[in-house]
């Protein structure tokens, strides 16, 4: 059933992982480190101070209490959650760098009063900004919510849900490690460099410290990248096709953003099918398995959404598509908006981001270097400049490696194109959503955040590994080590910054 990869490649692919035993010990160590790091973050960050954690908790609480997913119209969080937020001084802390979280005897009294009051845990069917999301991640969260062993108050359950995020982060880093292994099978030393750079990406660690659906999305995209890499490197089989389809479906049932990776997944399956075209049976079973594995879960979800839950199947996409009547989207403006989101504005372009000098820098780069909380504190500017120097070195090394080793890349450029398509798909999805959201906002509010790029974490890890590989083992290991140590430093001082921001 297995087909032969027709292209020449740098080295033979490692044996396909058949289970936990096929995975190197160092990969498990990298995953464990990611989990421990996320747990550390979860202990430092005050409850609900990861963006939208209030809404994601509300969704889980609703699902855990009612057994069905919430839906619009807006009716606020449960009284239980709202009263807890009040006791914590949540709304006076976010966005106000002068304000610390409530602590001390008064706060403890208020919190105890809320816990004794046993307020209603069910809202009138809404979870704020999370309501539009599909329910897969929240269903897992609801199970943990129900079985949390430390009590039934909000703050008793929250740590267990945060622990789930740490597990998701560990699995994401494990998939990233295996993805890099598929890309660079002959460079064992480079695998942990990329995986650890991903594990200590400061915003990834921060988000993994809170209850956030993005943690599940990041795992799905890392799983998809791994499934695509295995399929392209080892050939199309029904199992590999099914893996691609199933992971894509899981991602779609976690967050609609996963649609960004559908074109890359489709091209990967078609490319693998083209390479195996002489074996018609393999092609049919591989493509068919991918379609079934994608289609069946999605169709079940559509059926449940329409027939049982009576909620929209793609609420987030519907919300993005609905613009104010006075603000008609136009393609030219959309293209200019997308360009300016990441690249410098050209002379003939209207300024789409008047409140920022350059979104690629202000929003994304500085955001990824370390903008924490509800985006209200970050590192000093010079830190971003230092990181830019290091990032530019890694990219230059990776590009030079691709050019110098182009002989080894022969026959693999199409694979490279699949990953480029994955990147472009996500960037396009973010900027389309951002442009539509801005049209809806009466004050032109910017919707995008740096964390929306985190689904590209496996590709970031691969970039670090390829950059290191390009310099050879001696200097490449040093460059990769430098990236990991710099990321570790950003993580540790990001945690110091967090303690100072909320408790100092």
């Amino acid at each position: 059933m297995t087909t032969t990869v027709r292209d020449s490649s740098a080295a033979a692919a490692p044996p396909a992982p058949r289970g936990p035993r096929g995975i190197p010990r160092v990969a498990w160590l990298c995953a464990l480190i990611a989990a421990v790091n996320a747990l550390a973050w979860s202990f430092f960050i005050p409850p609900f101070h990861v963006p939208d954690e209030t809404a994601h908790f509300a969704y889980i609480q609703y699902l855990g209490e009612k057994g069905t997913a919430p839906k619009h119209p807006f009716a606020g969080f449960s009284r239980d959650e709202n009263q807890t937020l009040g006791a914590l001084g949540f709304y006076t802390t976010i966005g106000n760098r002068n304000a610390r979280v409530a602590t001390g005897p008064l706060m403890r009294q208020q919190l105890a009063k809320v816990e004794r009051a046993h307020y209603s845990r069910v809202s009138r069917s809404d979870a704020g900004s999370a309501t539009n999301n599909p329910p897969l991640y929240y269903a897992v969260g609801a199970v943990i919510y129900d079985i949390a062993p430390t009590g039934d108050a909000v703050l008793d359950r929250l740590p267990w849900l945060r622990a789930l995020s740490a597990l998701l982060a560990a699995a994401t880093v494990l998939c990233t490690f295996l993805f890099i292994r598929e890309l660079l099978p002959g460079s064992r030393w480079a695998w942990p460099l990329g995986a650890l750079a991903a594990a200590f990406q400061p915003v990834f660690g921060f988000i993994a410290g809170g209850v956030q659906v993005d943690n599940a999305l990041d795992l799905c995209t890392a799983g998809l990248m791994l499934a695509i890499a295995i399929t392209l490197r080892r050939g199309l089989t029904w199992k590999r096709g099914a893996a691609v389809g199933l992971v894509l479906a899981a991602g779609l049932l976690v967050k609609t953003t996963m649609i960004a990776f559908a074109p890359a997944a489709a091209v990967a399956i078609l490319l693998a099918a083209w390479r195996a075209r002489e074996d018609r049976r393999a092609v049919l079973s591989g493509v068919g398995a991918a379609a079934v594995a994608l289609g069946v879960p999605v169709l079940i979800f559509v059926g449940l959404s329409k027939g049982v839950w009576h909620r929209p199947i793609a609420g987030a996409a519907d919300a993005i598509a609905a613009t104010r009547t006075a603000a008609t989207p136009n393609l030219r403006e959309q293209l200019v908006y997308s360009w300016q989101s990441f690249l410098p504005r050209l002379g003939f372009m209207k300024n789409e981001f008047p409140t920022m000098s350059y979104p690629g820098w202000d929003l994304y780069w500085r955001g990824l270097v370390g903008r924490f909380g509800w985006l209200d504190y970050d590192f000093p500017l010079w830190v971003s400049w230092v990181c830019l120097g290091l990032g530019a070195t890694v990219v230059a090394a990776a590009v030079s490696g691709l050019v110098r080793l182009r002989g080894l890349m022969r026959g693999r450029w199409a694979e490279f194109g699949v990953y480029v398509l994955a990147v472009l798909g996500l960037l396009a999805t973010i900027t389309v959503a951002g442009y539509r959201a801005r049209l809806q906002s009466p004050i032109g509010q910017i919707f995008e955040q740096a964390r929306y790029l985190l689904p590209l974490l496996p590709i970031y890890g691969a970039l670090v590994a390829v950059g290191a590989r390009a310099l050879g083992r001696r200097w490449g290991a040093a460059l990769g080590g430098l990236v990991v140590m710099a990321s570790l430093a950003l993580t540790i001082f990001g945690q110091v910054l967090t303690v100072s921001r909320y408790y100092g």
Partner: protein
Amino acid sequence: MPLRVVLIGGVALILAGLVYVLSQSGYEQTGSDSVKPETFAVVLPAGGTVCQGPDVVAAKTGRVNMLIGSYGKPGPPLRLVLRQSRVGVVAAGGLAPGWKEGAVSIPLAKPLKTIAAPQLCLSNRGASRVALGGVHASTPGSPTRLNGKVVPERLSLIYTEKDKRSGWSRLGDLASRVGDAHGVGGWVFWAAIVLSALAAVGTVVVLARTPRES
């Protein structure tokens, strides 16, 4: 060899950075009224008094920090009084003339011994006006009064301890606050530090061993 230099150098720099940060002295914040200094919300004329509260002020508070503008001139003398109903003045302090405009820290003569809920009054005892940072809140029943007249503005007030302390001496207080915020004990802060250290040590070990394994 270059990797070893990176690892040893990286660990040394991180540790040095942590020691530096923790050795920095600062005024420990004891609370705030959670109002951002978005604008100069109240202009306090010469001889005028603005009062706000009652608001909860924590024990050990020894300074009140405000954003104050003096229109480019040296600041006039200011008098600050914290007065609680049925108790009287719980703390008082002020600034001599000549202070510089911007973020201004007004020391109290004696820090608060216990938690209190006083009204805060700031009097301008000079001959020139000052502008005070806060917000133009539109909520009715605002507890701010300018020369006895209710105004809708709110002042931004940050309370700190009287004397500076190094980060090292504040670790115990930080642990207690982290514990409070999570609804558990201070152990959660120390657990977080241990986990963070474990992740860092594990990373160095993995990096140091990997090239040998290859």
